């Protein structure tokens, strides 16, 4: 699917250039996540000619590495929960904006709702993983990204 190819390119750009992570494409199952850690999603809803949502699924170790890398912090620097959520939320924002332009062109306008970060149960995480999207090991942390889009005015 073309949009998945574009999503993959944008995810690589954001994870490698912005988050400064080593990224490996992979197939993910729930078993590859840490059973001891809670699941989080960062999601951005958008509307315009199309409407939909982009969702990123990850766990705290990924969010911590993300925040440390983006802030240029050392492993010994304290990162608070607000910063973890903020970095995760901003990642969803950057992926969404770049993905929508890359996938649908510069002449299509979207309104992005403010990103939301939520803790979700493992069962919901399994459902998200079953959707078509992009899955990676980013600095060896599993993450999954999916975008659902449909025509708003049909």
């Amino acid at each position, binding site marked *: 699917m073309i949009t998945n190819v574009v999503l993959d390119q944008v995810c690589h750009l954001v994870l490698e250039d912005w988050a400064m992570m080593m990224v490996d494409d992979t197939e993910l199952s729930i078993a590859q996540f840490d059973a001891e850690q809670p699941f989080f999603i960062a999601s951005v809803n958008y509307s315009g000619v199309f409407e939909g949502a982009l969702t990123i699924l990850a766990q705290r170790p990924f969010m911590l590495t993300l925040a440390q890398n983006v802030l240029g912090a050392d492993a010994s620097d304290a990162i608070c929960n607000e910063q973890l959520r*903020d970095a995760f939320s901003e990642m969803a924002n950057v992926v969404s904006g770049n993905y929508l332009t890359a996938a649908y062109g510069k002449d299509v306008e979207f309104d992005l709702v403010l990103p939301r970060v939520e803790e979700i149960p493992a069962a919901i995480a399994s459902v998200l993983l079953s959707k078509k999207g992009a899955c990676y090991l980013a600095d060896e942390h599993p993450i999954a990204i999916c975008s659902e889009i449909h025509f708003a005015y049909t």
Partner: protein
Amino acid sequence: MGYRLLIVDDSSIVRNVLKKALGMTGLDISNISEAENGLIALAKLHEERADLVFLDINMPVMNGMEFLQELRDDEILKAMPVIVVSTEGSDIRKAQLMELGISALLRKPVPPEILVETIVSVLGESKHDN
């Protein structure tokens, strides 16, 4: 006297990253203020002088478009240079922003060299050497 800059973004991460990047530009910067939305930014601009505003679009309370409209309607602040740093990429939005008199539109993630190039171009290269 160095430049006084204002960063308007609801993400503390983005404000921190931008502050760090600005610190590495070699520009003579005397002060960097922060605001988490357009309303706070307008209040700050009335309290303290700024030479340049870095503005996000998608923010709560007062977004970047609303801030720009208020700024351009303000007799004292209407000439303030603004660089938009956003994920917004559509031509329609870009045209709307240009109409509101922005100096440049940078798409996140912004490479540091593009940031420097844009600031120098907006503020004037002569001051860069000060």
